[in-house]
């Protein structure tokens, strides 16, 4: 029983770790899509920033420079998306697909050219990455049953990014629902004409939204390559951007709901790792592939309206063209 409890706590611990990039990306997606810009390029931005982070860390040895570079790279991609979708009123889905493919190719090309390792960066040593933080008194408090165990094993000992990820959710909520910027951002995603006639610039608002999106995907990318791992390898984001997109839709474009979805998908992943090859009573061995596909299946089911209708921001996907 105690063993089982510990296992559950440790699974929770793993859940937090694997959910973190999803959380950053889902919040990023919320900023972009709440402003009316569909963003299926979360994946590409995250990949690009993961690469840039690892590359800078490998060259300079400074994780902070790497982090700054990652954010800058993701923002650059976000601006490209904005340039296509906001300035030139291009198709947002097409632009997203383009950025994903571009990022996949470019990271490998540049990685290979700079490091001659088939697209990989050199492995980073501890001083050029972000390492886990042990919270104060983790060991002492760890003696206390249950609460202490949870504190020591699940709450303490994570990377700073994990804590940041959890801080970003209420922050996102606060920005969206408690600030002027948030009000305007939500308005521009629902009815850009209303924003325009209210004397605000639709373009400027949307650019700010995609930049927020860029900053957050940059954090996600940096986490993946220089915190969770110590290296960049080709296509290392492995579809997590799409899962985050699914989580965002699942969460109906709301920060805390999306957080819940991210944690659920993270838990699925953590459980999948631990369930591998385990025979469940009554079910038999669950194919790992099934658990891996579960987030996608769940999203489709949700979209089919079996769980509840997901209402997207009204103006999403349509470029704003001034008309009477």
């Amino acid at each position, binding site marked *: 029983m105690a063993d089982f409890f510990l296992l559950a706590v440790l699974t929770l611990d793993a859940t937090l770790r694997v959910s973190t990039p999803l959380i950053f990306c889902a919040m990023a997606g919320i900023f972009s899509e709440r402003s009316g810009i*569909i963003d*299926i390029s979360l994946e590409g931005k995250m990949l690009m920033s993961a690469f840039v982070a690892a590359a800078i860390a490998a060259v300079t040895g400074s994780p902070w420079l790497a982090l700054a570079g990652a954010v800058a790279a993701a923002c650059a991609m976000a601006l*490209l998306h904005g*340039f*296509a*979708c906001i300035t*030139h*009123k*291009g*198709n*947002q*889905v*097409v*632009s997203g*697909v*383009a*950025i*994903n*493919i*571009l*990022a*996949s*190719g*470019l*990271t*490998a*090309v*540049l990685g*290979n*050219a*700079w490091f001659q390792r*088939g*697209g990989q960066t050199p492995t980073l040593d501890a001083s050029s990455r972000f390492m886990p933080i042990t919270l104060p008194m983790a060991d002492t408090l760890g003696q206390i049953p249950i609460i202490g165990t949870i504190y020591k094993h699940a709450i303490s000992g994570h990377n700073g990014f994990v804590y940041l990820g959890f801080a970003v959710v209420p922050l996102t909520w606060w920005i969206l629902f408690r600030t002027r910027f948030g009000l305007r951002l939500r308005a521009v995603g629902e009815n850009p004409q209303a924003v325009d006639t209210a004397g605000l610039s639709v373009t400027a608002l949307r650019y700010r939204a995609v930049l927020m999106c860029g900053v957050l995907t940059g954090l996600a990318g940096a986490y993946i390559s220089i915190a969770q791992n110590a290296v960049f390898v*080709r296509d290392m984001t492995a*579809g997590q951007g*799409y899962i985050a*997109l*699914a989580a965002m*839709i699942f969460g109906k474009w709301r920060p805390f709901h999306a957080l819940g979805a991210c944690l659920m998908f993270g838990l699925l992943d953590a459980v999948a790792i631990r369930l591998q090859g385990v025979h469940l009573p009554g079910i038999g061995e669950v*194919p790992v*592939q*099934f658990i*891996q*596909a579960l987030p*996608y*299946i769940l*999203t*489709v089911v949700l*979209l*089919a*309206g079996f769980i509840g209708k997901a209402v997207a921001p009204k103006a999403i996907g349509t470029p704003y063209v001034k*008309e009477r």
Partner: protein
Amino acid sequence: MSDQTRTLPRWIDIGLIPLINVAMALVVSGVIILAIGENPIDAVVIMLHGALGYEEGVGYTLYYATNFIFTGLAVAMAFHAGLFNIGGEGQAYIGGLGVGLAMLGLDHVLPMGLLIPIAILMAAAGGALWALIPAYLQAYRGSHVVITTIMFNFIASALMVYLMVHVLIEPGQQSPESREFAANAQLPFIYQVLGWFGIPMAKSPANLSLVWALICCVGVWFYIWRTKWGYELRAVGFNERAAIYGGVRPARVIILTMCLSGALAGFVGLNEIMGVQHKLLLDFTAGYGFTGIAVSLMGRNHPLGIILASLLFGVLYQGGADLAFDVPNITREMVVAIQGLIILFSGALAYMSTPWITRLYFRLHDGATPSDPPKPAHEEA
């Protein structure tokens, strides 16, 4: 919107502007090649030679182009009905699964003459099946086909891994692959066919499915622009409410169109499984479904344009392979990056150059400068 804004002549709209877009993508690609310390001009020479300079290279170019024609047509077909099918990858995967299962089951039973139509049917059925659910959800549940088809790509991939690893793997085999089909379940290669007529050609994977791809082009063109079903499809794509008024049932059109689109993507399975690999294996779709988006955008969603764009992408892929072979610093992913740039410039930024071209054209033409540059007329036959 205004009824009478001036429109550009068609040759600019469907000829010059797409060319300018591709040119911009290639220029940026050249900058990337420069940035990694190679010479873009040399790269182009190597690429062109690799793709068109010798028989085997040409064969590979055509083999890649075959896949792109299928996936490009799939995207275009859906696009005319106002749908964005990003699920070509998964549909191709399941189409290939259909072909593979049929061949594994029947290759010792039936002659090639029967296996080919069966394979075509199975590829179409597999692809259509994989498009059917997203189509149904879009038509009756309003869930967006973009998101559902993306999800279905992942589901297809998980399904295939499961089947290959647990069900279809040949016992004693290291990697998850089925057994090889018997010879009568292997589509003849082009070089073989030419060989029967006494024309020697170097070995390459281009096979008879190229012919089927061309037939599909004609079929798609005819369907979209010459039949009442195509008429309804375009009506739904342009103006769904008018279509309803005209007695069209959009839900049916959406489902039918997505199934046809999926079937076209499924034919990648024909080319890959029956034409080239001759066994079921993982990851044979290799991103062709996504490339189809670029192909369709570049080809302005018209079969003729798609053929040309497919050839261009064939050149990029095959030439890119040779480039990667000969210039160690340039890896194959360069082609992926170029593809991303082409989608960006021909798709998302498609109208970037339109305003100044319009201005330039009218200034040259009659000295007038319309203040409101028109969107280019759309892709009708």
